[in-house]
Structure formats: structure tokens, C-alpha cells
């Protein structure tokens, strides 16, 4: 007990576990879990994707998918959806967060209202908008009541880009709150001294936002953006429940389609496996590229600042 003040070895020695082993002991449950319930299914799935209905080795599952005319459309639609939705959501969220960060009377109430869609389950969101987008739905009801349009609009028959934009709007409706919260939390924790310093040096409000607030928020935005992109790339419930299967192909919608819609063809399940692998690879490559670019930009900006 002589070395009371050298507390680091004390922490370590208490249980007699060395510093090298301890982290792995703590990680062990997660690692075992992932080996068993993640790696095993992934390997099994990859294996399945290369077999035919009789269990023989084949590339045909992939060939069928690549030949499918819907495949290219699904990739394109997903890419458009991810890019547009993430852009729209982050710009809107940024504006909303900046407004909510100002001190005014109904600030708290507004935040509360903005939060609500966050708690609404995707299936429920799909139902809300499906009741709206039907020809006799509430969107057309409002438009007629406000006499904006005389004829009812067949929203659900939209296709191509307009259908994607429709889904982006619905997705934005649900996702915006969580994005606003992330940015707002960053803003509220932002040290006011930075802003005051900027103001003293004569920076305008816009300059303070652009040159001080946004760069400080950047790390948390980069990470949350990546998680958002991964989630957006896997969107499927909305499109299936609002527009139905096959109306507007998306990557994960294809998997669900193979699983649920054509369940009795033995080939369909194998194709679902193959499609899963393809989706995982695409998402992985995109994430890595995004991460590298985002990191490099941060480094470059840091260098510019110097």
C-alpha cells in the first residue's frame, strides 16, 4: 500500500487481470455473439447464394439478378433516393436547428411538435401517407377544399423520379426530427465564447454560422450522415406499403420481393441471398469511400486554416 498515489497500477492489480487481457475479456461477449449470429449467417448466406435448388455450386443466381431489368433500376433508384433524401434532410434540419436554437417564446413547444414524427413506426408512416395519397385521400381533399386543383391527382400512379421524390418527402417527414436533434444538441453544447469571439472580430451572423458553427458540428454530422445513408440505402417498407411490390424497385425491396412475393419458387430464395450479398457489398464500398472523402476533407480544411 505504499504506492497509493500511483493509482493506475492499483486499478489493474485489484483483480489481477493484466491490461492486455482486460479489453479482450470485455469484448469477448460481443465477439462471440457476432461470430455466432453475424459471421455464421453471413458465411451461410454467401454459401447459399452460390448454390442452386439441389445444392450444387452455381453462379446462376447472380446471373439472373444481373440480367433482371429491374436490377439496374433498383440500384439507380436507391442511389437517387439516398443522395436526394440525405441532402434535403440535412439542409432542412440545419435550418430548423438554427431556428430552434434561437431564444423565443414557443421554442419548447415547437421542438416538441417537430419531435413527434420520430416516434412513429415506419408501417404507421406508410399508412398515414397511403391514406393521404389515395385519389380520395386527404391530400386531394385539402387541395380541393383550398380549390388549388379541381381534379383529383392520382399520386399513387406516379413513377420514376416523381415517385422517388414522393418517397423522399415521406422519408423526410419521419427522419427530420432525429437529424434536427443531433444538430441541435451540437449547437446547444457549442461554446458560446467562440461565437462571441467571432462577433467581436466583426463577423456577421451568417459568417459565424458558416465559419464557426458548422465546422465545429462537422464530426458529429459526418458520423450521423453515414448512419443515415446506410439506413436510407436499406429503405423498403415505405415503398412496398405505399406503392406496392415491383412498382418502384429498390435494392432491399428486391430482397423482400424475392422472399415474400415469390416464395414458392426455390430459386427465389437463393436469389434473395445473392441480392443480400450484392447490397452489402455496395453499401460497404460506398461507406468506405464516403468515410475516406469526409476524413480527407476535414484534414484538408484543417491545413487550409493554418
Amino acid at each position: 500500500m505504499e504506492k497509493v498515489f500511483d493509482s493506475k497500477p492499483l486499478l489493474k492489480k485489484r483483480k489481477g487481470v493484466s491490461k492486455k487481457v482486460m479489453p479482450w475479456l470485455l469484448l469477448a461477449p460481443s465477439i462471440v455473439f457476432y461470430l455466432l449470429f453475424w459471421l455464421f449467417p453471413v458465411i451461410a448466406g454467401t454459401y447459399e447464394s452460390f448454390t442452386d435448388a439441389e445444392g450444387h455450386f452455381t453462379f446462376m443466381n447472380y446471373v439472373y439478378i444481373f440480367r433482371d431489368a429491374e436490377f439496374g433500376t433498383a440500384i439507380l433508384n436507391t442511389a437517387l433516393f439516398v443522395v436526394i433524401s440525405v441532402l434535403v434532410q440535412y439542409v432542412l434540419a440545419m435550418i430548423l436547428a438554427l431556428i430552434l436554437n434561437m431564444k423565443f417564446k414557443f421554442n419548447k413547444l415547437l421542438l416538441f411538435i417537430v419531435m413527434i414524427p420520430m416516434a412513429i413506426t415506419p408501417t404507421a408512416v406508410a399508412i398515414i401517407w397511403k391514406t393521404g395519397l389515395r385519389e380520395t385521400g386527404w391530400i386531394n381533399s385539402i387541395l380541393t377544399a383550398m380549390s388549388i386543383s379541381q381534379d383529383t391527382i392520382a399520386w399513387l400512379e406516379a413513377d420514376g423520379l416523381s415517385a422517388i421524390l414522393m418517397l423522399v418527402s415521406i422519408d423526410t417527414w419521419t427522419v427530420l426530427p432525429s437529424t434536427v436533434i443531433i444538430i441541435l444538441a451540437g449547437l446547444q453544447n457549442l461554446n458560446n465564447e467562440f461565437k462571441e469571439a467571432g462577433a467581436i472580430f466583426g463577423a456577421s451572423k451568417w459568417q459565424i454560422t458558416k465559419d464557426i458553427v458548422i465546422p465545429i458540428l462537422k464530426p458529429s454530422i459526418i458520423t450521423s450522415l453515414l448512419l443515415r445513408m446506410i439506413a436510407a440505402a436499406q429503405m423498403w417498407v415505405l415503398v412496398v406499403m405505399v406503392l406496392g411490390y415491383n412498382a418502384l424497385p429498390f435494392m432491399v425491396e428486391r430482397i423482400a420481393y424475392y422472399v415474400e412475393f415469390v416464395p414458392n419458387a426455390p430459386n427465389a430464395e437463393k436469389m434473395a441471398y445473392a441480392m443480400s450479398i450484392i447490397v452489402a457489398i455496395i453499401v460497404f464500398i460506398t461507406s468506405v469511400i464516403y468515410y475516406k472523402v469526409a476524413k480527407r476533407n476535414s484534414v484538408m480544411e484543417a491545413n487550409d486554416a493554418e
Partner: protein
Amino acid sequence: MQNKKKYAFLKKLTPLNVLIVLFMAMVVLSIIVPLLYFVTVAFSSVNEISQFPMKMFPSFNVEVQVTYISDPEDPNFTKYRVQVKEGDSFEPAFTSRNSLEIEEYFERYLSVRKSGDEFLEDFEVTKTQGTTVFKYAKDPWYNFKAFFNLTVNGVQSLVNSILVSLMTILISVSLGSCAGYAIARYKFKGREKVNMMLLIVRMFPIVAISLPMAILLIRFNLFDSLIGLAIIYSIPNIALTSWITSGIFSGINPELEEASCVFGASKVQTFFKITLPMTFPAIAASSMYAFSTAWNDTITALILTNRNSTLALAVYKAIGSGTSDIQFAAAGSIILILPALVFTFIMRKYINQMWGASAIK
């Protein structure tokens, strides 16, 4: 001084302020209006749901206009013509003398539960009084009851959803926070690799895991079981929890823990008395994400269950990709939303703290 400053922003009528107020009004409307209509749909009868334009607010009464039709040639002939109020006018609905027929129409299309004989008794007055308007109270829970009657194991699916969510929270928070602690507190070989792996795990679509997982679960006799579902839902959430908690753990000064040890607390005591309370926001936020994965999922439940469905799946199945009976599905969704709403608002402030902390870092 401070107070004056606080509200100064709204008092000045600059173009920017007007723009901001208009923007916020738009945002609030676009959130509230869909929800209002949604609640209305959940309380609508078949008759109301087919009306256009739709009503924005739910109604709990229905007005019908009944006319007595007699045939002078045949004294035994009596019939009632029933018209239902839609907007400002009464639209023809049906003509009948049969108490069962009347009862069925009122229940099926107007959500009014009453025996047919009572209707006939009410309608007697029209013989002397001529056309009369009656007002009946709708059964407000009609669609909710119908949802649970139509779905197989409706109530059980609600219980299942709650249990699966709790199990998911338990698994992902206990495993994930241990991993998060290891990553934050120890510098060890392969730390970066572990971090990277945790991100990769999230990239694999959960559907893709669910399919081969079925094989594994059948082997372990866990197919169609709640724990099987909870295991899958934990996959992305263990990674997320460890990521969230490691951020918080590295923000806590280790000297605090050391001080506690110096004062004679064991490592376990230190963890529960010092470290855990400080990480509570991170754990609360992680549980919220775990909860929403388990509560919201449909596709995994679709693949991995037969009879043990979850509530979200029940709602999905009630409508699928079709349009019929959307009011029952809407009623089911309301039940699906309520617990999530409560949970989200309890946990909200902790997410706030968490993202704030990671922004500072």
C-alpha cells in the same frame, strides 16, 4: 435585460423574421395535418372512409334520415328508406324492413352497434311523423376491436412486441457497453480493427442476416421464438451501443474512478456508483435505438416467425400492399405508435446530451 433580449427577435418585423415564422408555420402544419387525418381515419367507419373530401376531425356520431315507405295496396308492406348524412346532404344508403339487415348495415358501414329491433322501434315514429332524422353514437373503438379480431393472435402480438423490445435492450446494452468501455479505456492492438468491424456489422442489411439465420435458429430450436428475433435486432444495436458508450466513457475522467478506488471502493462498486450514473444518458439513448429497431421491424419478423408475430408485423399484414380496410390498420398503428411515443419522449433528453457530447469531442 436578458428577458428583453429574449423576445426581441419576434418583435422586430424584418423580412427574415417573417420568413422564419412562415417556415415554422409550414413545418408545424405539415407535421400536424397528416397526424390529424391519420387519427380521423382510425376512428372512421367504412361509410366515412369512402367519402370525399375527407373530414379532418373524427366524428363520434352519425346522422341518418329515415323515411317510411308504405304500399296502399298491401297493408302489411312496410319499409324504411335510410339516408346517411355526408357533408351537408343525406345520401341514399339502403331500403329495408328486416331488422337483421338494418343491424348489419349499421354495424358494418356506420360502426353503430345496436340491435335491429331497437332500430325498428326507433323508426316507428316515422309512420306518424314522416321523415325523421336520427342521431346515433358510433362505437369509437370499432376499428380497434376489428383490428384485434381480424389479426391472428392480435393481443399476443402486442405482448410479443414488448417482450422482444425488452430482450433486445437487455442484450445490446449489456454486451455493447462492455465493448464500448474496452474501446474507450484500453489502448490495445487491434482496437482500430474492432472499431471498423463494428461499423461493417451495421452495413449488412438485416434482411440478409435473417434469411440464413432461419437455418441456424431451426437448428437451435429457436425458430418462431422471441429470443431468436431479439438476437437479430441486437446485431446492429450492440455495435451502435458500443459506439455511443465509448464516446461517453472516453469523456469521463478516469481519475474519478481512480479516486473512488483509492477510497477503498472495489472495481465493481466504482462501476455502479461512479461510472454507470455518468454513462446513463448514453445507455438511455442506446436503449431507445434498440427499442425502435425491435418495435419497428417487419421483415425479420416476417421471415422468422409463424405464430409469434409482433405488432408491427400484424399491422403490416393487416394491409400489406393493398388498400382495403385501411382504417383497421390505422387503428392498429395507433396502438403501435402510443408506446413508442411515450418511450421516445422519456428518452429524448438523453439523446440530446449524447450527441452534444460527441460534438464537443
